[in-house]
């Protein structure tokens, strides 16, 4: 990460201050939620000892203070801060992984683990690799099959299944 800032070309990218402030704000909000909820369940002393919010309340306070400090530092140095988070091309690569990954995770509640897993592997092999259909299909079907044998048959740990597995009678 060098001192490069704006402009087009391969060197351009996202500055660090945005994500920095975002994450600090996220943690700050989390701290406020913890404090709010601790106050709800009670932070004081009951007949039988400290109430449920007694300990988390302090945790929330320290979280708010520390992330508030981080947020303030980022905001105060907003103009001077020229550090890079990532270059756009790098972020595109991350997106190329994060996109299909998110689709995969969203499909799991409906289709179980096996079929989305096979599709994910197949998608990557076709999109980012130069594999023929035969290799793609055999690898993408083979990996979930091996997992099926190891988990369900050998260790007797059932994995999430969807309508397709039900239709196959597994």
């Amino acid at each position, binding site marked *: 990460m060098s001192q490069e800032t704006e402009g087009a070309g391969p060197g351009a990218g996202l500055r660090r201050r945005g*994500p920095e402030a975002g994450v600090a704000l996220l943690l700050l909000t989390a701290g406020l939620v913890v404090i709010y*909820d601790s106050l709800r369940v009670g932070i004081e002393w009951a007949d039988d000892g400290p109430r*449920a919010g007694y300990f*988390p309340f302090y945790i929330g306070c320290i979280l708010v203070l520390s992330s508030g400090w*981080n947020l303030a530092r980022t905001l105060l140095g907003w103009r001077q801060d020229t550090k890079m988070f990532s270059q756009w091309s790098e972020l595109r690569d991350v997106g190329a992984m994060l996109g299909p990954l998110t689709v995969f995770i969203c499909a799991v*509640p409906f289709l179980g683990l096996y079929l989305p897993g096979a599709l994910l592997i197949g998608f990557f092999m076709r999109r980012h*690799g130069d594999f023929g259909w035969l290799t793609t299909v055999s690898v993408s079907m083979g990996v979930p099959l091996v997992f099926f044998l190891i988990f369900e048959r050998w260790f007797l*740990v059932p994995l999430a299944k969807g309508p397709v597995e039900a239709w196959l009678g597994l």
Partner: protein
Amino acid sequence: MDEINSLMQGFGVALTLPNLGFMMVGLLLGILIGVLPGLGGANGVAILLPLTFSMNPTSAIIMLSCIYWGALFGGAITSILFNIPGEPWSVATTFDGYPMAQQGRAAEALTAAFTSSFVGALFAVLAITFLAPLLARFALEFGPPEFFAVQMLTFCSFVGMSKEPPMKTLAVMMLGFALAAVGMDTVTGQLRMTFGFTELLKGFDFLIAVIGLFGIGEILTTMEEGLAFKGKSAKINFRIVWQTWGQLFQYWRTFIRSVLIGCWMGITPGGATPASFMGYGMARRAAKDKDAFGKGNIEGVVAPETAAHAAGTAALLPMLTLGIPGSPTAAVLLGGLLIWGLQPGPLLFVEQKDFVWGLIASMYLGNIVGLFVVLTTVPWWAAILRIPFPVIAPVIIFICAVGAYTVHSSIFDVVMMLVFGVLGYLFKKLRYPLAPLVLALVLGDMAESSFRQSMLMSQGNVNIFYANWLVGSLMAVAIFLLFLPAWGALKNLLRKRETNAHLHQ
């Protein structure tokens, strides 16, 4: 020599045929995990943990700890041959390991790395063998305030010792505590921070967090760095191994230094990664020829590997004796102990002698066997990295998803894994350390209950934390470490003022 007797009994437990088998399986899986990007000691053990629920705890912990040793060994292979650290603690190994491979001395570098790992681990296990029973006996006297003080010391040392900004360390640590508090409060039975979601009743499982933060987060960062697996090939033959071993004797000072750094960093929860950097830095500072480092100096491989392995092993000492893990992987193993119904802590040494000494004996065996396994199988592991990334990456994601699902057979956990994954990526990019988050998530409930019990004992009076010399000194060291960064910042500020004042005169 009680320890020797117990250790011999431990060997009796570990040296059964099934346990040796589990050891081999664990080592091979561990090396595989160490070689693959995105799978590491912590999340590898987390993913495999559910498969061991039905096993006998001793066999299970032997297998899981061997996965850990294997991962420690495996990380060095990718660093040296491919310049890609398979594990964070082998980053320092790339500095001199990869240049050596480029010069065609890959076999020498690998032998040096594995041997140093072995030496580091061996001394750390020796330390465990003789220190752990003492510490456990001592800790039997501990009450809730003492335990809270030790936990406080653990967390404060993260703030004081870590290289990351202290306020960020503090923030993620508190996030970990907050996440640990979600769900039913075990004392009052009240629901905390569930906001009506039934999925949150059980709280956040740290295994999911580990798989997401370290697994998915790691894959995302690897994507960014771009993956060109252009590796050197390696063939190790006996002659080179023999020659390198002969050569290594002259570095005994480096070994001793790194072992001490490693043991210290492992017991106080610094972990293997900072230990490896410290080991490298100290070796360089002490060397006559500083310029040789970074250009393929064998000492630059010896120093970080010894320290990393010593730290990784020593991290199990506080885990077993106090129930406080010294590293994220030790934290996952601790979670395993709890699931198998074993309460880590001083009583473990009294009540579960077979288990404890079987584990310690397996550490000796695992590292000896591991050294030979890894020396003989290097070419295969290097070949695995030649599998194209478009195949490896989705397979690793699938493995992570399966691992997250099997913890509680819950699909919600798979979704949470993705959330933790994105968080892990952001945290890594913004220099928020992950280890304190995981440790706080694991120890959160324990720390809270010892704090509450102490408060009950004293009826809400904080002075119970300096009621006797033991609690008092633990707390004093903790507070000192907590404010160490502030002191450093203050000194810098004063120095700046002074120089400014001089300039104005």
